[in-house]
């Protein structure tokens, strides 16, 4: 036997969760730093960073959604709240992008206007779904008692 037998219990399990959380955070910060450095310091084109951006987005949102779902108690927004959040998010993103890049060419709509208006809708939709599923899961657990 090359290693001694390793025991697991509630303490080591909790410590493992904390360690994983800390290093996931560090990894996210480093990955965001690499993307920022390559995009804005080295001036590399956006297309060359698609793999980094995809991994970063999946990891970041996957982590957040899973944690929120398992944690359970998220405020579930009303439909009116969703509309207000959507208009605010899309408005802020559009205003910031217009201020930085100016008005985009009409032919570039799929890489400018589409993500500006579709992105917040997808994010809010995923959030509401996760919040609803999380709350439903906990209520079901309680009802089973």
């Amino acid at each position: 036997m090359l290693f001694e037998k390793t025991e697991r219990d509630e303490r080591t399990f909790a410590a493992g969760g904390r360690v994983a959380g800390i290093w996931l955070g560090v990894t996210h910060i480093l990955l965001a730093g690499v993307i920022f450095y390559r995009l804005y310091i080295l001036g590399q084109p956006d297309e060359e960073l698609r793999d980094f951006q995809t991994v970063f987005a999946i990891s970041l949102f996957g982590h957040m959604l899973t944690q929120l779902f398992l944690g359970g108690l998220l405020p579930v927004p009303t439909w009116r709240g969703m509309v207000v959040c959507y208009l605010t998010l899309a408005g802020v993103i559009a205003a910031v992008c217009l201020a930085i890049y100016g008005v985009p060419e009409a032919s570039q709509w799929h890489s400018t206007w589409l993500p500006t208006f579709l992105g917040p809708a997808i994010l809010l939709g995923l959030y509401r779904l996760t919040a609803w599923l999380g709350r439903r899961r906990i209520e079901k657990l309680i009802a089973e008692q």
Partner: protein
Amino acid sequence: MKDLEIASSLKLARVARGWSQAELADRVDVTRQTIGLIEAGRYNPSIKLCLALARATGQGLDDLFWIQGER
């Protein structure tokens, strides 16, 4: 939640039975280090583990664990 410090008489109960930390750890299915940290007041066990320790040592839960300064 207020951060409560938990005190215990686990070491006394264990030594009274002539058990080592490893023996008690085996009985409640945790690591020896976890028992050591509970005895040193460096780890707050779950209610499940508290009950397992109380059962293993034949003590009541209140006799084994209490909030620091309340006894």
